[in-house]
């Protein structure tokens, strides 16, 4: 079937170019932050990765919804890959966030950073997604249950964020907020390029991983068909 999507190679090269441009923008063009100094550079990778993780979970949920709405068999692998990639970027968000917390406040973990805590909750939730998926027999039942769970995940994101903000009111009355640093033009440009590059990179990874999983499935079916 003709694949109307932009070809993977074009996207891959695009991602490489964009990441290179982002690196230049971050380390050369963007000035150093006035008060945080050089460690503020982590901002340019940590926040885009977090936003990409949200996007992947959203993609996984959207494909899950399509699976439930149209019984389309192909959406299961797409939802699974989306959630898988979202979890990878989620872990990356936690790690880079911890490094930034260490650089900024000298502690590896802080419950007052709402976004970090949210990613911890989501990490627990989506690990359970894979536990669930691997303990149900392959077939329509597994696809539908995984899809429903992926949809719950997306509903959990805003609810948990609100809950964590509420929780911080009584765990740390003195809420330690760090508003976004006042960004100069170049800083903001560097952030946008970095965000675009990481999002595109994630999409390329999604397409490559999906191709791998589809080939795997096709091969199993072929092997079973050719079996004497």
């Amino acid at each position: 079937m003709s694949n109307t999507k932009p070809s993977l190679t074009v996207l891959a090269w695009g991602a490489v170019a964009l990441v290179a441009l982002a690196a230049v923008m971050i380390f050369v063009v963007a000035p150093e932050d006035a008060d945080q100094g050089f460690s503020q550079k982590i901002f340019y990778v940590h926040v885009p990765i977090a936003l990409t993780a949200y996007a992947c979970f959203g993609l996984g949920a959207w494909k899950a919804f399509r699976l439930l709405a149209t019984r389309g068999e192909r959406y299961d692998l797409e939802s699974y890959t989306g959630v898988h990639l979202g979890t990878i970027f989620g872990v990356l968000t936690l790690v880079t966030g911890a490094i930034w917390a260490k650089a900024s406040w000298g502690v590896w973990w802080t419950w007052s950073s709402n976004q970090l805590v949210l990613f911890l909750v989501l990490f627990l939730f989506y690990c359970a997604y894979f536990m669930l998926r691997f303990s149900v027999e392959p077939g329509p039942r597994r696809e539908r249950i995984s899809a429903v769970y992926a949809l719950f995940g997306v509903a959990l994101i805003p609810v948990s964020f609100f809950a964590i903000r509420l929780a911080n009111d009584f765990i740390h009355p003195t809420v330690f907020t760090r508003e976004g640093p006042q960004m100069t033009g170049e800083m903001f440009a560097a952030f946008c390029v970095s965000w675009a590059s990481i999002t595109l990179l994630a999409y390329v990874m999604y397409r490559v991983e999906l191709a791998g999983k589809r080939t795997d499935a096709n091969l199993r079916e072929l092997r079973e068909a050719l079996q004497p």
Partner: protein
Amino acid sequence: MSSADQYVAAAYGVFVVVVLVWVAVLAAKLSRLERETGELVQLARARPVAGEQADG
């Protein structure tokens, strides 16, 4: 390297490492797929071609 530089290097380093690990995992899958397709080709060749089977 000042401590700030170390942390920035660590953050970007982790990002690059994770992407490379992902690439390595994909590479492993690719080589497995290559081996499996090879086996399937043998299986396909071993089967009598459908046409011959008719009068075989």
